[in-house]
């Protein structure tokens, strides 16, 4: 069975949102969602890194399957993705200092984010072709950004609320994430009614 591109895109963006349905990238989601100002660049940076990871994984997967080295797949993924991000960071620093300032501080944080490795592993497991993999990575990053933005908006608003003391902190963020996740369940089966 092959999925159409819109199915892949909206699936990863909404119905199977990376953060709210697949629990990928929770650490930055819980950590960086306090303010809208940081949420947006974080989302953009993660999306970018996910694309890089997806590209790397596609190439590597071809390599390890061709040479029957499946047992090296994980090591190859993690090492190459981490290096690629480092490389991108250096290139950015040199050629686009403005963009580096906007995204740079987030890049090292993202390198070993599970959403990034998740993209690589899932596209491999689902045997996506090149275009499908890129669509999947883009939608995954967009879904991550969407969840981050929604959460940041809500958290900024709750800064002004009289949230009970026992709920303050991570407990509140988790409950909010649960509620958002509940909302995203409304997208379950997206495209399945066809």
């Amino acid at each position, binding site marked *: *069975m092959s*999925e159409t591109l819109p*199915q892949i895109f909206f699936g990863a963006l909404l*119905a*199977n949102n990376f953060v709210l349905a697949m629990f990928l990238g929770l*650490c*930055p989601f819980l950590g960086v969602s306090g303010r809208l100002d940081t949420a947006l660049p974080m989302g953009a940076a993660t999306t970018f890194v996910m694309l890089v990871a997806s590209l790397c994984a596609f190439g590597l997967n071809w390599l390890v*399957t061709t040479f029957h080295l499946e*047992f*090296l797949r994980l*090591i190859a993924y993690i090492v190459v993705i981490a290096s690629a991000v480092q490389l991108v960071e250096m290139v950015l620093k040199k050629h686009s200092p403005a963009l580096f300032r906007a995204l740079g501080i987030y890049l*090292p*944080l993202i*390198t*070993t*984010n*599970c959403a990034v490795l998740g993209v690589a592993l899932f596209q491999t497991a689902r045997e996506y072709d090149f275009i499908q993999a890129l669509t999947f990575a883009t939608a995954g990053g967009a879904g991550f950004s969407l969840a981050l933005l929604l959460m940041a908006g809500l958290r900024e608003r709750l800064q002004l609320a009289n949230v009970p003391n026992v709920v303050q902190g991570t407990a509140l963020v988790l409950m909010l994430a649960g509620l958002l996740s509940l909302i995203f369940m409304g997208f*379950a*089966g997206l*495209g*399945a*009614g066809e």
Partner: protein
Amino acid sequence: MSAPPRLDAPLPQPASSTAMLRTLGLVAGLCGILIVSAYQGTQEAVTANRKIALERAVFQIIPGAQRVDEYFATRGGLVPAQGNVPDGAVKFYAAYDTAGKLRGIAAEGAARGYADTVRVLYAYDPVRRVINGMGVIYMRETPGIGDKIATDSAFLRNFQALDASLGADPQTLANTIRVVKQGSKQHPWEIDAISGATITSKAVGRGINDSAGRLLPLLVPHLASLKEAR
């Protein structure tokens, strides 16, 4: 998710590149040994596990079967399965009884359900040319609604003799296997949906139809070669 690099740490004496290479090489070698030995050590158990899991699933839908052989149905005929699925080939399982007689064919179908992909294994009876068994391999459908495809007896009755004969053109099924509203099944190639779980029911039907539509044209002409176990 790692801790951010500590910027305030004093810069130590830079290590020589030989030291760096030596260490990396050592570690890589160590890791290589670890991985390879783990791979070698577990390979047998993993293969056995897979076999058991597969047999359990096949035996459930093909009563009386005692052994399972894996095949690829290709344009050129049926070949024992090995490695990756070649282009255009369809994987299927031939189930035999203790006497080594062919009891049935099993194959996998998959389609997008409500929450995620629904993967089912169905049994094909080469004699009667019907699908006579269905089991769910993987699903994440809503408990209490969608997951009834695995338990609902009325729904499972659809798969006692679901028509899957090839048409005049042996490249396609004579009739598309399709899911209809509960209680309105009229033809042997129709499946009565579970009320309230239409989407999941349709996924099962679509998965079987797609898979059978690809498999049977390749399989049926060569059935004779499967009569006996390998």
